[in-house]
């Protein structure tokens, strides 16, 4: 039998390795499941609403109540001024229009106090507050509860309008972006019925000009309100997978005016952020504890044979010291790769199955590399320790100390270096700096890159991809090479 295969079999197919791998997979699935069940409560459909208000022979309000896919839902709508009901209606399609006798100056006063449009449906309850200081067309930002949509709702936070109702500068359009649909509300001039809408994605700041590439939106359905030009249209739009700005350009053919509104959005909705952050947290138990299994593997593959003298008998076979060392190192490496691959896949697939959202391929890659690097860093260090300290008990003692230092003490060290608990950004920075000097650093860097991709952390200057790769590789290569050089000439007895 090929000794390499034998060594591999004796490392990977070891009861302890398989047992703990199974335990860690189950624990990881448990962690994913528990975050799933806490999120699951929130992934039921919610009521969302976009609404606008203006004065024209009294006060007019139009709006659209819709679910997370942008489809209209039936419900009841009430308008409250200062807490007291001043009008109500109900809708089957989701569209609604309300009119009540308040003239401009009264409306203006009420807007100062605050007018609230409240919709209740079987899915729940939502309100759009109008406040004169801010907007007169409200687009609701449904809070964080979308599933199976790609984008967060976009709120209006830029306006470009010449309208000056009530002495304030109100918006005359608003939009909401859900599940490939742009829900666009326009309170136009009468006669401007056939407006066109363009949209585009960009990384530019929100006040910049229209993004470089723009696409004409294709209309799917429109509700126009008789004769006035104001109404709500739903357009199909292509979703972008990268974070940035979504900009909508409105072109009014009659008056030949254009208006641009734009909003920041993130490619992942908040729910997906939670889902994706459960990926690193699902594997973290494994990643922190698996180096202990490798401590044991190095004990049985190197330290014990060395300490007991069995290595000598092995070396009396037609094999060089280099080959023994390299065979066993490769066997450990394969075990590390297989274990972290199996774990990464099983946690990723659990996420896909539970949430119906598949982690992107690069998340799989990052997590797999992070864990493999972490295990390999420790494996390499343990190998060196086993060679340097021939005595088995000495190896065990020292490697446990090193494990504790790098897993527990390192965080404390970051605190100490940052002068206490209060300077959070310094702590974060020092933690990442220290990770370069930790055999398990690659794990925390891979988590960092995932959290950054989903917008959970801001970029930190000390984390540099080249340094991350180099330091992780050095942690694997340097101790194992020193170990090999030492092993070449050492006295085995």
């Amino acid at each position: 039998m090929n000794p390499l295969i034998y060594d591999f079999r004796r490392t990977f197919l070891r009861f302890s390795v398989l047992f703990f791998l199974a335990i860690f997979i189950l624990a990881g699935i448990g962690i994913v499941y528990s975050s799933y069940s806490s999120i699951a409560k929130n992934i039921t459909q919610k009521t969302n609403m976009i609404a606008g208000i203006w004065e024209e022979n009294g006060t007019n309000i139009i709006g659209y109540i819709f679910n997370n896919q942008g489809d209209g839902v039936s419900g009841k709508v009430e308008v409250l001024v200062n807490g007291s009901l001043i009008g109500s209606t109900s809708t089957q399609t989701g569209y609604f229009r309300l009119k009540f006798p308040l003239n401009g100056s009264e409306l203006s006063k009420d807007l100062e106090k605050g007018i609230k449009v409240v919709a209740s449906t079987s899915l729940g309850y939502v309100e759009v507050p109008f406040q004169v200081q801010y907007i007169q067309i409200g687009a609701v930002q449904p809070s964080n509860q979308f599933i199976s949509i790609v984008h967060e709702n976009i709120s209006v936070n830029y306006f470009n309008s010449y309208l000056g109702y009530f002495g304030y500068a109100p918006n005359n359009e608003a939009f909401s972006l859900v599940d490939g649909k742009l829900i666009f509300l326009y309170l136009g001039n009468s006669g401007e019925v056939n407006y066109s809408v363009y949209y585009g994605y960009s990384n530019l700041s929100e006040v910049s000009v229209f993004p470089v590439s723009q696409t004409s939106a294709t209309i799917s359905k429109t509700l126009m309100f008789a004769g006035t030009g104001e109404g709500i249209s739903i357009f199909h739009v292509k979703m972008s997978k990268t974070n940035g700005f979504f900009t909508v350009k409105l072109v009014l053919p009659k008056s030949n005016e254009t208006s641009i509104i734009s909003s920041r959005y993130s490619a992942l909705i908040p729910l997906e952020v939670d889902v994706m952050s459960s990926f690193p947290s699902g594997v973290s138990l494994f990643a922190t504890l698996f180096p202990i299994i490798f401590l044991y593997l190095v004990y049985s593959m190197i330290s014990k044979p060395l300490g007991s003298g069995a290595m000598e008998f092995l070396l009396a076979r037609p094999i060089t010291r280099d080959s023994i060392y390299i065979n066993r190192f490769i066997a450990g490496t394969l075990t590390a790769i297989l274990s972290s691959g199996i774990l990464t896949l099983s946690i990723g697939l659990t996420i896909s199955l539970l949430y119906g959202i598949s982690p992107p391929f690069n998340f799989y890659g990052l997590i797999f590399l992070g864990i493999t690097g972490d295990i390999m860093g420790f494996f390499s260090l343990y190998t060196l320790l086993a060679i340097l300290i021939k005595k088995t008990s000495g190896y065990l003692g020292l490697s446990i100390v090193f494990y504790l230092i790098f897993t527990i003490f390192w965080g404390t060290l970051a605190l100490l270096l940052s002068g206490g608990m209060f300077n959070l950004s310094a702590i974060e920075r020092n933690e990442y700096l220290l990770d370069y000097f930790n055999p398990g650093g690659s794990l925390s860097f891979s988590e960092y890159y995932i959290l950054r991709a989903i917008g959970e952390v801001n970029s930190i200057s000390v984390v540099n991809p080249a340094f991350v790769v180099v330091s992780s590789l050095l942690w694997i290569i340097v101790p194992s090479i020193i170990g090999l050089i030492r092993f070449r000439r050492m006295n085995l007895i």
Partner: protein
Amino acid sequence: MIVIENVTKHFGDFIAVNDVSFTVNNGEIVGFVGLNGAGKTTTIRMIAGVLIQDNGRIKVDDHDTISEKKEVSKNLGWVPELPIFEQDAKAWDYFVYLAGFYGISSNDAKRMARQLFDELGLAGFEKRKLATYSQGMKKRFSLAVSLISNPGNFIFDEVFNGLDPQGIQFFRDLASKFRNEGKAILLSSHILSELESIADKIVFIHKGRIIKQMSMDEVRRYVSPSLKIKVDRVSVELIDYLSKYGKVREEGGYIIIDNFNGNTADVSKEISALNLNLYEMSVSSSSLEEVFFKVIGDQK
């Protein structure tokens, strides 16, 4: 053939093996004799290529133990003084694993194991963990593994130590058989008499140095046995008569002839010719060990 040339090994400041040179020729059994701690095992480890010398060269069938380690291992069988294996391995599995290093496939290794375990008296113990093996079984297992490549050179380190009489006989017969097959055999021991009947040559090592190399005949010539006899009546005539065989003295009713250089049959004939009754006659057997200590003593 094993050739050791000016080999030195330090452990820290301590010199365990000091400028050692000797040769084990094919078809020859060389006894490697020294007190405990003399440096025998250290030398043997270096021959086996598992310990690296500070100075000097060792060649096994013309292969250098350092630069051609793999060739050396293929051509050298080694039964260590106290063989140590991976404790929790089963004999059979470990054999198959080790055979892999000789490029033997699993199936061939299993066939080989069955045959060797049978021949070496390990049949029935294949599935046992090596940790449960006795010293003798461990030595046989080492031998089985060594025989995988049917090497032309063998080293037995204190192989008779801790064995029962059958075990000792087994390894003696084996060494003779190997010699007849033209293999070079190095047998270490701290008891010279153990090697008396089988070694062709003795290499004495003391405090890491080779202090003497002698053929077995030379060793025997070095031996000066004493003859001890008891007769019914001691006469001056008899004493005179026996003087021609060595130095005669009386002790506790016995006549002792030191440096006895005759043969016992002649002596008994002479005694009956003098009309004396011979009650007892023996040749002292500690003389080989005396040679050993004499060789060491010469060195001081």
